[in-house]
């Protein structure tokens, strides 16, 4: 760096209350509400789709659009509007998995993932750890990863965030499936720790 930048500040982000207000507006038929939800969450949806190395750029675009179409169609089923974010990301992951399954099956029609319908209809009954606590947990997990291929992949995809899984595979000179596998393994670690946190909160609910 040649000299320190001036006037630059870290970004601020919208929260769950903003989502709740935007969901309420969208349910009233207010297009501005839908647009706010789309603008706020599109980057995270895109990130999920780009994490599947088996999907090409067109697939990623399709997954993004499908996700928002499904979500807006099903908005009335969302019992906790403040949890729009995680709910939408669940839909996005399912759309990506579904697209991948369809792709693997060539042009044959394959059944939609049965769990997707369940995810849309089922209320989220999990205790909700603070988002900051979750984020700190994830940072700790990454820090604890041993140096190696998995940590490098996680760093490139989740921490730097500029590359898709396909681009990471090309950069590291490994197969696409290897990258997908590393990201899935890492997500499973995060999931185990979050599950422990959720179970701990459930355990504190009574007795």
């Amino acid at each position: 760096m040649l000299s320190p930048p001036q006037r630059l500040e870290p970004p601020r982000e919208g929260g769950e209350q903003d989502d709740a207000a935007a969901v309420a507006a969208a349910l009233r038929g207010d297009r501005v509400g839908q647009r706010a939800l789309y603008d706020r969450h599109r980057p995270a949806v895109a990130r999920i789709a780009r994490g599947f190395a088996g999907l090409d750029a067109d697939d990623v675009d399709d997954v993004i659009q499908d996700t928002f179409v499904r979500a807006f169609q099903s908005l009335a089923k969302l019992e906790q509007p403040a949890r729009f974010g995680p709910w939408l990301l669940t839909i996005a992951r399912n759309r990506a998995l579904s697209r991948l399954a369809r792709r693997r099956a060539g042009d044959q029609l394959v059944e939609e993932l049965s769990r997707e319908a369940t995810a849309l209809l089922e209320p989220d009954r999990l205790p909700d750890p603070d988002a900051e606590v979750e984020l700190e947990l994830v940072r700790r997990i990454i820090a604890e990863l041993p140096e190696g291929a998995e940590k490098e992949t996680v760093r490139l995809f989740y921490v730097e965030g500029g590359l898709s899984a396909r681009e990471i595979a090309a950069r590291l000179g490994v197969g696409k499936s290897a990258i997908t596998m590393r990201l899935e393994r890492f997500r499973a670690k995060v999931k185990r720790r979050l599950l422990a946190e959720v179970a701990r909160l459930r355990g504190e609910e009574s007795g």
Partner: protein
Amino acid sequence: MIVRAHLTQETYRRLLEGALSPSEARALAEHLASDCPRCEELLEAGGRAGADPLDGRVDRALSGLTAARVADAGDDLEFERIQRRLASEARRGEPEAARPRHRRAWGAAAAAALVLVASAGALKWARAPRSGSESASWTGEKGRARAVPVRLRFLVLDPAGGIEKGVEGEAVRAGARLQFEIELGSAADVALVRVPAAGAPEVFLRERLGSGLTTVSVGGRPAAYPLEGLAGAQRFVAIASPDTLDERGIDAAAQALAPPARPDAAALLGLSLDAVEVDVAGP
């Protein structure tokens, strides 16, 4: 039943449904607090079969690790496509089974429509449209031959917490902030300069950057330029050079870009430029 062993699908399902007793949940929490490859394998396999609410939490946490990329921000055309599909499916009462894959062409059109070009006629830049972040066809070549291809893009961070893709020439609120991304074809010295309609240009970033996409950061964290205190047209220019970009060179280029900009200004020789302009509304 007290869970003291590994996670099972049944236990997992009951936890998701809120049917696990507090004592079972505590035992499960205790078990999962330590490394357990077997439980992770079960979770990994479950994740491949389909996502559930816990996956949504995982993805929410992971998405918080880094700021949104400008390239991932939404745009008007995509939002309109979503609206059209919603309207179309509402009329038909069922989801579209299959749609033609025409997005690459649309994406190129969108990119072309959103191309951010300096309003100064003096800067005769050309760029090929591109579709998505993985396109290899974009050259971004501007200025003199052998200059570094450079592209400047930005997000508008609204005071209320909203994030929008920045659009050239649009009005933005005085309390908003701009988060910049710089894309380079090869490593270069880069300066970011604000050129107001009147007054002296302000150089607010000077850095040596590698090729590819870089979000402007401070101390490793994405940073944004506050528009507070500014009013009217504000032009932001990225100046790039494969060679050292010294103070004098930047100042000369900044002055050459200040209105009225002069075509073929000597100060711009050998430099690559890209600019965006916003109109800052009054408070």
